């Protein structure tokens, strides 16, 4: 083998590795499901407050959050069986797992212990979500994913400064634009790739 052939061979290896690394290792279903769950929870609270219909909103989350976790565990299991496993995929799953536990603790324990003013849960969670998106985007080297973080962080600033009833609507909209819609985009990409593979 001469120098040129060796160079071609190395280029070929590099190309195959890069192409494989770009493969979808997640399906976006978690983003969509959690996005819808939180939107539902936020809107129930928002419209209840607008109609002066008061009840302990804590119970909405007692129902919705375990539902989200059950779905994530199920999705994680089926994803593991259907998608190629990668180191990056495992890191991302760990990051979101840790963020999810952190957010659940803050939301439930923080509220129950009165350590956190419920009005500030949304901006705190927005900071967490922004961090998750930023890390994910950097790991998978997809700029638009890390750019979503800036949407979350900007939203967090707004929510910190303007707490109130409308912050529930703002959070629901953020969940739609920075969580559910990106999830749909990822899911469509995943579906397209699955069709090519099968």
């Amino acid at each position, binding site marked *: 083998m001469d120098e040129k052939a060796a160079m071609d061979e190395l280029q070929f290896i590099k190309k195959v*590795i890069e192409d494989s690394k770009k493969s979808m290792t997640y399906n976006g279903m978690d983003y969509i499901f959690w996005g819808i769950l939180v939107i539902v929870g936020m809107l129930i609270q928002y419209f209840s407050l607008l109609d002066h219909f008061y009840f302990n909103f804590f119970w909405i989350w007692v129902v919705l959050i375990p539902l989200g976790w059950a779905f994530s565990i199920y999705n994680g299991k089926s994803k593991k069986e259907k998608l190629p496993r990668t180191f990056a995929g*495992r890191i991302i799953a760990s990051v979101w797992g840790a963020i999810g536990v952190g957010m659940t603790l803050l939301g439930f324990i923080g509220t129950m212990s009165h350590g956190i003013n419920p009005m500030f849960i949304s901006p705190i969670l927005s900071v967490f979500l922004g961090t998750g998106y930023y890390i994910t985007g950097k790991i998978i080297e997809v700029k638009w994913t890390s750019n979503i973080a800036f949407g979350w962080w900007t939203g967090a600033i707004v929510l910190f400064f303007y707490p109130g009833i409308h912050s529930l609507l703002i959070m629901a909209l953020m969940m739609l634009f920075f969580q559910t819609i990106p999830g749909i985009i990822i899911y469509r990409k995943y579906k397209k790739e699955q069709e090519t*593979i099968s």
Partner: protein
Amino acid sequence: MNEFDYQQLDDIIHSRIRLAIIAVLISVDEAEFNFLKEKVNTTDGNLSVHIRKLEEAKYITVKKDFVDRKPKTIYALSNKGKKAFEIYVERLERLIKK
């Protein structure tokens, strides 16, 4: 083949399809047949032949599983395969540097 002879290239890896299979498997922890087929861009039969060769050399490990009641064959690079790939790339680099 002498492992320290950098003039020599591993015959098992030195084939475009087998090299592609290994390059795909080095970038993922494990992958199933159809994923490999799409990435390597070859036919079922051709892929099977090359996979068997890699399997016989113990460069890859094979695991059979059922997903949604459908049989799936999952492949991963073995430690021996990883080592062989490292040596192969190293030899290519040496050839260029010569």
